[in-house]
């Protein structure tokens, strides 16, 4: 009998697709990160305002922590810039042949933007 066609997460992740495949994977991960943030925010607000529960405050403390905020800022910046890149390629398919270059270009936008934001956030955090 033939082996199943199923491709496990590990086998798929080991495929050497390079920068564009990484961008695709990060787009999904950052999208999930944003959903997680919004969900936590809604749950925390509901629990605190409607039920006066301490759990809401705990969730609030978690997603407002510097670590989570640094993660979510990366998610938002990456998702936005990569999404813009995909929209541009969808509108002008002839540019798709420069997809690899466009992936490099987006990192030139994302990294300075993120590092600068992270720097300001960490400085404020350290200053208390």
């Amino acid at each position, binding site marked *: 009998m*033939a082996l199943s066609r199923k491709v496990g997460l590990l086998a798929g992740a080991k495929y050497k697709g390079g920068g*564009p495949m990484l961008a*695709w994977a990060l787009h999904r991960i950052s999208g999930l990160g944003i959903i997680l943030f919004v969900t936590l925010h809604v749950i925390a607000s509901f629990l605190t305002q409607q039920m006066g529960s301490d759990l809401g405050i705990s969730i609030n403390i978690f997603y407002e922590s510097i670590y989570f905020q640094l993660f979510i800022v990366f998610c938002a910046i990456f998702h936005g810039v990569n999404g813009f890149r995909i929209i541009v390629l969808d509108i002008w398919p002839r540019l798709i042949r420069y997809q690899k270059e466009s992936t490099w270009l987006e990192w030139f936008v994302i990294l300075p933007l993120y590092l600068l934001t992270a720097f300001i956030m960490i400085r404020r955090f350290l200053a208390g």
Partner: protein
Amino acid sequence: MQVTLKIFRYNPEEDRKKHYDTFTLEAEPTDRVLDLLERIKGNQDGTLGFRRACAHGVCGSDAIRINGVNRLACKVLVQDLKTRQVVIEPILGLPVEKDLIVDMEPFFDHYRSVMPYFVNDDPPPAKERLQSPEERERFDDTTKCILCAACTTSCPSFWVNGKYVGPSAIVNAHRFIFDSRDQAAAERLEILNEQFGVYRCHTIFNCTDACPRDIQVTQAIGEIKKALAKGSLD
């Protein structure tokens, strides 16, 4: 130089699971990976299963994963690998029948589903159906496909759901959709507008990188998406 090949093995008559066998052999930098497989089969293990026919990048039968990426075994030289440790595995997303041989039938089913043939019900002219060089150029890139499946089996969307028609079928639809002499573009576009058509493509780009014919696969898919969105082929 000495090269070590770690090869994916599965014999449906003996094995319940896959395993890997390692072979070491002498190779020239200009040997192709296919030459190494032939030599292993000839001198070390006659039971090794893999497909090949033309050995010159024309028939498309020897698409495999070489060091984690889809390639034709007959088009990759040892010197291109930049390592002496080579991992050889079957392409992903199709059932493995034996060693490096996969069942290509699901792939060809998708190919057949997009009407990959010329449709024109007008009575044939006395000579050929004429077309300007510009009209011919419009679909030139997608005429080059050799149906090797390297693109479709490099696509995470296809790995996740085998119902996705896949890049190769879309490339072959593109070849006729943008042919000025063909009359079935609307039908093909309708097929590709379905749930498992072009919108399963998330511009991951593995297909274009994997294509041994250097076809701009993702661009062809993008052009069809745009034609669907605009409702015209211009």
